[in-house]
Every structure is written in structure tokens, then in C-alpha cells.
């Protein structure tokens, strides 16, 4: 508890109520709230107190009168004391006097019901001395009066009235004479009162009479009033009041209603302004929809929903309903637009978002996905139909002219290529759009119920369905038509280009799908298509080669290209090699190389590898078949030209010889074919195997083996045929010519030379040798050997059939002849042939005398000498081999 407040100063020290007083002192409170009480002359002035500092308070004095302390009370110091005092006084104020109090001038002096506040101060009794008062200006200090008359009072009505006080207070400046006159006046007055009531009445007769008159008048009026208005004056008063009320009402009702209207209008206007946003929203939504500013619409809508969503006001609800309807329309529109294809993903996503923010109840994104998928399907079908139609059209147009060609083009036509490209483009773009959309959908970015379990499955099904449709179309487009022969009418380059183009399209699509990170199932479908197409391409190339090889037979010109180790060959084997190599290289170039994430085309033991093997085998066998056909089929009139066979049996016409010279003779062809076959077997097949290796094919051992076997059999067939056609006539000539030269030798005739048939045989052998050698070269020995064998066999047969040799000369003759033959054909004799000759010699008696032996040797030497050239020609090649 701090020290109590002490007031030591007051400014001003006196004044009328309401004076602004500055109170100074000490400990007047530590803050405004610390000040809890202020009394000036007993009047509470706290309300007006204004705490300035602990030394100063400003307040207004209350309606107090007289001198009094200023008591400040603080929370911290309690009730305080005052060393100075304030004096309150009341000024008689009037219109001309400055006053801090408002003077009501318009109040009438006396209101009928007397509500005028009658302050006791205002009643001042007349001056008992009958003198005018001096006014407030020259006051005798009250303090001194208090000191002079400690127990007195200046008021006339007070018990402790002190005349001195009164005089000092009111007449301190009055002159002595005036006071004396006042004294006289007062004495007279007192005496007047002393005379009693009667004298009072006498003195005031007029006034008393006047009062009585008034009373009578008042009574009369009262009675009359009562008569007129009854005992109760109030009802009429009430009626009057009510009348006045209703009149007032009627007077003001119009104005009031007008005011009410005005208020309502104003209110409505202010409402409109305040909720301008709401009221303008429908039109602004329309406008924004027209401008396609859907985001704005959505924002506005959200805002209006937040602001007025729960409104109870009918008008707002109505507008909201309108807005809702618009929004619903918009939603439907957006929904349809979202569904309507084609549309790019960005836009679609936007629509979906808008729908979501507009609280679309359906699963917008899912619908978008579905519609996209449907669109994709229909797009593919459309593409298919379009190109089918186009193709049909072209076919019809072309069909009239060259049906075959257009058929042949089949899957290689330009239309198909365009179809493929278009379908690929469609698939990749649409999946490109669909898949990210789906992904975002499942990531939950696009609302709806992506978590629904069946969604994933159905999306997968969708994509698989789309991809399957695509693959189906592509199969239809690329893998069918054209009867499988494929591109017969198309040059290889063009075909390869188309194949490449199609493959590239497919692969681009595949790449695009790979990039999308699609699940493996649809990817594998596409991959399968690509793979199949590659297989198809490979097959087509091989089939093409097959076809060409088949056609080789017609292409044979029998022009001998070169002499190989295996004899003279035409370009046929090389053509084969070229065709096969071409096909392989094409395959290698176009389809063998695997794209990204594709299976190897020719995996070990896989179906395509087997197919390739099969095809190669077919090609090679076809070649063999062609060779066979070339070798063994000959025109009827063209027979073996055996002119060179028998000089003696000259059966041929000169003309036919000339005719057959132009082309090569059949036996030549036969031989050439044989040589070709051998060449093929020995050289081309390994070359093809090498090529296959080079181009990354598995080694077609099986095919090669089969071909080899087939070629060997062909070769032997050829050899047999040749022998049959060549040996038979040759052998056939032996007997006649033997007998033509008298086989039965004269017994007595000296043997000086072999008979002509020996020469003929030798000559024939030489001819055959020459012929075979000219064609087959080193391979000719086989033919010659066979022929020799046949000849020896024939000789043995003839020797066995001939009558036994009886004469010595005949024996010598026969021995000579056989020996000579043996000698001539020594290099070509097989063991079998030797046996035959030995057998023939056995029938002949051996030489008995020296003479004969000598003679024989002479003859043989002569023969050798004579026939040196021929023998050499028969054997020379043997030596060279």
C-alpha cells in the first residue's frame, strides 16, 4: 500500500457545475486504472476524471455548492486528503451570460402539467429589506463569512440565520442610508404582520375576493365539464388520442409505405450489388462456355457452391438451380466432347479434370479410356475397310486388263503397304494416348474408382483386344493374299523395299509400345506379328528362289561357260548359287536381324529354322529335278548322234547331222548335265552352305545331304542312260562287223593283221572317249570304262559262241585280235573287263611254235607302231588326269 494521495493544488479553485478542474498533488495514482475515486465537494466526479500523471488529474466539477475537499482515492494508496478546497456555486445564468451549461430558451415558463424541473436554488425569496441585491459579482468572500459566523447561515429560512452574514453577503456594498431605508421597510412589514389575520385580510381583501371568485369559477367549470363529459374524462381523452393516432397513421401511412417500398428497393438493389456475382453467374457461365474458358466456369461454380450452397433463400436457390442446370448441360457437353474422338489426350485430360471438379457422378476417365479404346478399334476397322475397298476398286479396274498381275501383287501391293502404315500409325498414336491416360487414371489423378479391381483387368483386356485386332488386321494385310507365292510379278527390289517399309512400320509401332511400358502380353502379340511377318518374308524370299530355280530348266542355253574339274558346265549351277545367295542375303538383310526385344528368327530347332531348311531343300531338289529333266527329256526325233560310232554302219543322214550341230546334241547335253550335277554337288553345295553360314542361317546339312544323294543318283542315272544309249549301239556293231570281215578265218591264210572289226572297236572307243572327254574332261574315264567293260563282255560272249578254233592261223588271228584290244584299251579296263578278255582268250588254243609267237609279237609291234596315234589319243587324257 503506497502513500495516500494528497491534493495540493486546484485550478480553478471555484466554479459552477461542470467547470474543468485541474487537480494537482502527489500520489494521485500510478495509472488511469489505479484511480478509483474522485470526489469534489462530495460529488463523485470519477466519471469525468482524466488521469494525466501521478501529479495531475483533470476533471469536471459536479453539481455541488459550497466549499469542499477534493478527495482522490487510488487502489494503491487508498483514500486521500486534500490541502486545498474547491468552491462550487451556481450562477444565475441567462441568455446574455456565458455559460458552460446549455440554457433551454424555448421552454415555456409554465407547462400545464408542471414538469419543469424546479431546482430549489431558483427560488429566491424577495429581499426582506426591499432592496435590490448586488448580484454575484462583488461577493464577500464566503470563507471569511464562515470564519466570522462559525455556526451561522446566510439563508433566511435557516434556523441558524445570522443577519450579519446575510447583510455581508448581499449588502456589503450598500450604503448606510439605503440600509436605514431597508430597516424602515422591514419594520413596517413586521408591524403589518403583527396586526393579525383580520388586518391581513383587510390588507389583502382584493386578493381574497379574487381567490374566492376564482374558486367558484373553477367549481362551475368543473361541474359543467363533468356534465358534458361524464364522470370519466379519460375515455373521451383516450378516444381523442386514438383518433389522433389513427389520423396520424393515415397521414403518414402513405409516406411510410412509400418509404418502406423505397427501403425494399434499396435493399434489393444492395442485395443485387452484394450478390452481383451470383446473379450474373448464369450469363457469365454461358459466356465462358462460349469462350471455352471452362476453368473459369469451374472456379465460379465452386465459389458459388461454397458461398451459397447451403442458402435458404428462395431466390438464391432458384438461381442456383438454374446454374446447376447449366452446369449439368455443360457436364453433359464436356462428357460428350470427351467421348468424341478424335481428341488429343491433353484436351481429354482437361475435360476429365473439369468433369471431376464439376462433380461428375460417373467415372469420367474410365469412360474416356473406354471410348478411346472403342475409337481405336473402330479406327482400325475403318482403316481396314478403307483399304480393302480401295484394293477391291483397284482390282476391279485392273481386273479387266490384267487380272493375274494384281492378284500376284497380293500382300505386296502399295495399298497394303499404306494400310499397314496407317494401321501402325493408328495403333501407336492411340495407344500412346490411351496408355498414359490409363496410367494417370490408375495413379488416381483423374478421379473415378481406379482402385476397383475389375478395372485393371478390363483395361488389360481392352489393350489386348486392341492389339489383337491390330495383329489380326496386320496378318490379313501382310500375311495373306497373293496365294502365298508372293510378289511374283514384282521385282525383288521393290518387294524388298516394301517388306522393309512394312517391317519398319511394324517395328516403329512396337518400339512405341515398348516405350509406353505396356504389359508384356500385348507386346508379345505385336512381337508375334512382327516375327510372323519376318518368317513370312523369309518364306516368300525362299519361295521366290524356289520358283526361279524351278524355271531354270527353261533358261538352260547349253552354252558351256567353263570347264571345271568336273567337266564342262553351263551357267546353271552358278545361277542356282546366285539365286540362293540372293534369297539368303535378302532374308539376311530384311528379316533376319532382330529388332528390339524380338526373338531370333532362326533359333536352333525352331519352326522357322526348320521351314528354312525345308525350303532350301526344296529349292535344291527343284534344281536337281530341273537338271534331271534337262538331262533325260529330249525330243523324240533327236536321238543320240551315233554317227561317229560306226563308220561301217553309216545309217545317219547328212542332214540330220547338220541339224543337230546347231544346238548341242543330246548326248552332249546329257554329259553336260552330268557335269553340272557333279559340279553342283562338289562346288556349289559347299558354297551355298558357306553362304548360309555367312548370312547367319543354320547349316542346312539335311537339305544338302538330301540334295547330294539326289545328285549322286542323278549322276548315275545319267551315266547309265549314256551307257545305254552309247554302249548298246557300239556293242551291237561288233558282231556284224566281225562277221562282215569273216570271223571264221581261213585256215591257211597267213595272219598278217587284225581284222577290221578290231580297228572299228578301237576307233569307236576313241570316238566315245573323245566325246566324253570333250565334255566331261577328267570325269570321262567313268564312261569309257563302262563302255570298255561292255565291249569286253560282248567279245567274251562272241568268243564263247563262235565255233572252236581249229586252225592254227585262226587261233593266232584271234589271239592277236584280243591281245591288240587288250593292249589298246589297257588303261580303261576294269577287273571285270580283264576277266572277260581272259575268258575269251581261254577259248583259243595257245600258240604252239616259236614262229607263231614271234610273228605275233611282230604283229603287235606293227600294230602299236601303226596305231600309235590312236592309242595315244585313247590314253593321253588318262595320263594327264
Amino acid at each position: 500500500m503506497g502513500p495516500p494521495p494528497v491534493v495540493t493544488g486546484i485550478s480553478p479553485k471555484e466554479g459552477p457545475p461542470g467547470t474543468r478542474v485541474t487537480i494537482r498533488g502527489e500520489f494521485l495514482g500510478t495509472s488511469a486504472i489505479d484511480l478509483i475515486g474522485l470526489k469534489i465537494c462530495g460529488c463523485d466526479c470519477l466519471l469525468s476524471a482524466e488521469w494525466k500523471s501521478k501529479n495531475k488529474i483533470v476533471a469536471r466539477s459536479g453539481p455541488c455548492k459550497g466549499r469542499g475537499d477534493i478527495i482522490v482515492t487510488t487502489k494503491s494508496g487508498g483514500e486521500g486528503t486534500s490541502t486545498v478546497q474547491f468552491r462550487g456555486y451556481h450562477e444565475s445564468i441567462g441568455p446574455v451570460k456565458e455559460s458552460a451549461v446549455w440554457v433551454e430558451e424555448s421552454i415555456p415558463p409554465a407547462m400545464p402539467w408542471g414538469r419543469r424541473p424546479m431546482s430549489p436554488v431558483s427560488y429566491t425569496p424577495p429581499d426582506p429589506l426591499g432592496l435590490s441585491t448586488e448580484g454575484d459579482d462583488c461577493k464577500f468572500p464566503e470563507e471569511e463569512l464562515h470564519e466570522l459566523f462559525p455556526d451561522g447561515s446566510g439563508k433566511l429560512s435557516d434556523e441558524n440565520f445570522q443577519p450579519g452574514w446575510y447583510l455581508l453577503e448581499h449588502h456589503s456594498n450598500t450604503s448606510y442610508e439605503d440600509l436605514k431605508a431597508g430597516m424602515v421597510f422591514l419594520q413596517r412589514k413586521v408591524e403589518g404582520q403583527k396586526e393579525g389575520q383580520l388586518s391581513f385580510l383587510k390588507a389583502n381583501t382584493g386578493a381574497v375576493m379574487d381567490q374566492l371568485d376564482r374558486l367558484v369559477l373553477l367549481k362551475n367549470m368543473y361541474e359543467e365539464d363533468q356534465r358534458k363529459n361524464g364522470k370519466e374524462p379519460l375515455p373521451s381523452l383516450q378516444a381523442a388520442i386514438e383518433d389522433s393516432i389513427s389520423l396520424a397513421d393515415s397521414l403518414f401511412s402513405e409516406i411510410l409505405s412509400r418509404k418502406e417500398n423505397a427501403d425494399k428497393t434499396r435493399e434489393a438493389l444492395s442485395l443485387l450489388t452484394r450478390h452481383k456475382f451470383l446473379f450474373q453467374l448464369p450469363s457469365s457461365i454461358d459466356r465462358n462456355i462460349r469462350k471455352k474458358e471452362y476453368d473459369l466456369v469451374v472456379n465460379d461454380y465452386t465459389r458459388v457452391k461454397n458461398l451459397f450452397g447451403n442458402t435458404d433463400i428462395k431466390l438464391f436457390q432458384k438461381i442456383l438451380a438454374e446454374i446447376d442446370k447449366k452446369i449439368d448441360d455443360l457436364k453433359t457437353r464436356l462428357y460428350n466432347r470427351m467421348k468424341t474422338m478424335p481428341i488429343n489426350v491433353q484436351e481429354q485430360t482437361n475435360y476429365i479434370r473439369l468433369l471431376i471438379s464439376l462433380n461428375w457422378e460417373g467415372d469420367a476417365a474410365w469412360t474416356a479410356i473406354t471410348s478411346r479404346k472403342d475409337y481405336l478399334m473402330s479406327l482400325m476397322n475403318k482403316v481396314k475397310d478403307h483399304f480393302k475397298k480401295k484394293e477391291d476398286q483397284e482390282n476391279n479396274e485392273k481386273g479387266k486388263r490384267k487380272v493375274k498381275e494384281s492378284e500376284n501383287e497380293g500382300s505386296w501391293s502399295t495399298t497394303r503397304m499404306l494400310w499397314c502404315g496407317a494401321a501402325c500409325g493408328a495403333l501407336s498414336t492411340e495407344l500412346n494416348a490411351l496408355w498414359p491416360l490409363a496410367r494417370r487414371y490408375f495413379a488416381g489423378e483423374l478421379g473415378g474408382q481406379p482402385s476397383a479391381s475389375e478395372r485393371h483387368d478390363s483395361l488389360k483386356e481392352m489393350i489386348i483386344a486392341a492389339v489383337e485386332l491390330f495383329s489380326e488386321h496386320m496378318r490379313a494385310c501382310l500375311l495373306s493374299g497373293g496365294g502365298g507365292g508372293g510378289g511374283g510379278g514384282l521385282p525383288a527390289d521393290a518387294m524388298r523395299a516394301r517388306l522393309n517399309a512394312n517391317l519398319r512400320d511394324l517395328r516403329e509401332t512396337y518400339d512405341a509400345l515398348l516405350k509406353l511400358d505396356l504389359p508384356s502380353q500385348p507386346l508379345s502379340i505385336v512381337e508375334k506379328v512382327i516375327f510372323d511377318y519376318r518368317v513370312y518374308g523369309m518364306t516368300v524370299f525362299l519361295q521366290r528362289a524356289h520358283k526361279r530355280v524351278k524355271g531354270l530348266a527353261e533358261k538352260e542355253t547349253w552354252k558351256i561357260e567353263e570347264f571345271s574339274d568336273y567337266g564342262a558346265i553351263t551357267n546353271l549351277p552358278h545361277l542356282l548359287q546366285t539365286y540362293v545367295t540372293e534369297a539368303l542375303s535378302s532374308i539376311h538383310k530384311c528379316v533376319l536381324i532382330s529388332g528390339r526385344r524380338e526373338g531370333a528368327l532362326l533359333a536352333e530347332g525352331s519352326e522357322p529354322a526348320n521351314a528354312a531348311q525345308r525350303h532350301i531343300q526344296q529349292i535344291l531338289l527343284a534344281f536337281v529335278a530341273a537338271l534331271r529333266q534337262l538331262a533325260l527329256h529330249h525330243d523324240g526325233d533327236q536321238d543320240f548322234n551315233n554317227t561317229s560310232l560306226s563308220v561301217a554302219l553309216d545309217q545317219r543322214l547328212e542332214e540330220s547331222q547338220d541339224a543337230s550341230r546347231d544346238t548341242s546334241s543330246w548326248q552332249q547335253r546329257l554329259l553336260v548335265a552330268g557335269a553340272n550335277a557333279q559340279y553342283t554337288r562338289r562346288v556349289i553345295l559347299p558354297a551355298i552352305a558357306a553362304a548360309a553360314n555367312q548370312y547367319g542361317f543354320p547349316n542346312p546339312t539335311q537339305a544338302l545331304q538330301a540334295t547330294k544323294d539326289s545328285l549322286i543318283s542323278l549322276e548315275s542315272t545319267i551315266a547309265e542312260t549314256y551307257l545305254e544309249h552309247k554302249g548298246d549301239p557300239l556293242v551291237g556293231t561288233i558282231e556284224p562287223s566281225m562277221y562282215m570281215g569273216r570271223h571264221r578265218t581261213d585256215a591257211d591264210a597267213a595272219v598278217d593283221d587284225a581284222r577290221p572289226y578290231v580297228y572299228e572297236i578301237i576307233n569307236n572307243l576313241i570316238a566315245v572317249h573323245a566325246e566324253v572327254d570333250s565334255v566331261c574332261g577328267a570325269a570321262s574315264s567313268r564312261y569309257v570304262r563302262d563302255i570298255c567293260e561292255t565291249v569286253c563282255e560282248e567279245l567274251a560272249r562272241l568268243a564263247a559262241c563262235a565255233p572252236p578254233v581249229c586252225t592254227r592261223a585262226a587261233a593266232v588271228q584271234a589271239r592277236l585280235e584280243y591281245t591288240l584290244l587288250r593292249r589298246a584299251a589297257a588303261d580303261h579296263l576294269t577287273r571285270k573287263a580283264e576277266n572277260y578278255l581272259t575268258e575269251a582268250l581261254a577259248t583259243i588254243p595257245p600258240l604252239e611254235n616259236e614262229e607263231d609267237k614271234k610273228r605275233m609279237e611282230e604283229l603287235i609291234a606293227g600294230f602299236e607302231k601303226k596305231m600309235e596315234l590312236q592309242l595315244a589319243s585313247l590314253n593321253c587324257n588318262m595320263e594327264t588326269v
Partner: protein
Amino acid sequence: MSKKPAAAPTLHKVIMVGSGGVGKSALTLQFMYDEFVEDYEPTKADSYRKKVVLDGEEVQIDILDTAGQEDYAAIRDNYFRSGEGFLCVFSITEPESFDATQEFREQILRVKNDENIPFLLVGNKSDLADKRRVPLEACRDRARAWAVPYVETSAKTRDNVDKAFLMLIREMSRQKLGLPPAPSPAPARRPRCAPPCCCLS
């Protein structure tokens, strides 16, 4: 006097007189509360009372700060009647206020009817020396003529404020104690008063 209990310290009633705006209230407030009020607000009649220790004795000083304006001239007589000592203040920057001191002196003498009433002539606003318009000599001459002390003060810097009040109170208590009333005028007072007066400027 009968109103106050006898135990109470001696009460000295001082009245501030002088023209309006010379600094009566400023001097009073400076003396009372060590505070300088910058803004001017004409006074009507303020009352302050304070205990001070003078020469080892506690006395109470009651200061009546009066209105300087002529509007209130009529009520001055009443105030003057109760006064026991007077501080007659003028502004050294305002010759008119200096002239007015003459009227105040006369009025006081008339009301109190005592030549030796404790009285002090105070030239205020000594801090505004550069604006001085009342010569120091004229002030001294007048004080000598009246046989009263002259002090120059500054309510702003509190220069000589306490001194002025204390001089007056000392004089008043001397008179009340029945000591030889005001020591003989001019010749006697000069040597006594000269030292304090030398601080004028």
C-alpha cells in the same frame, strides 16, 4: 484562522498578482511541482497549498494564483483581502506588464491598508534576455522606490524561483512573529538585499 487546528504549521497565504501571461502560474507550478507548463491557459483562480521547511521550521504555504486578465479585476479585492504576502510578477520582455505592477501595488495597499505588507517585485522570463525590453535599472529603481526586494526569475529554467518564494515567506513569518516589521526601507534593505539581487541578469 479559527478554522484551522492550532497544531497545524503556520499558514502563509501568498497571492500571485500581475498582468496576464507574465508567468504567475508557471512560477507557481514550478515552485510547487518542479514542472514547466509550456501551453498557456489563462487562469481564473487557482489554489495551491504546500508544506515547506524554512530555516528549520515547517511552514505551510498557500498560494492563490489569480487571474491577470482585466476581466477579473472586479473580484480581486476579495482575494487581496485574504492575502498575507504578494508576489507581483511582470515580464521583462513586456513593458506593459511592468507598468501594470504600479496599479497592482496601489490596489494591494488600498485593500490591505498596510504599507509594510510583505511584497516582492518579480521580473520573470529572465531566460529570454535577448528579448528583454524592461531595463534592469528601471526595475531596481521601482523596487527601491517601493522599498521592496526585486528578483529576476525564470520559470522555465527554475532560476531564482525557490529563492523568490522563500524570501517572501521569510519576510511574512518575520512579520507574524512580531519581529521588527520590514526593516527600514531603502537604505537598510539595500546591503542586505544586494547580494541576492546580484544574480539578476
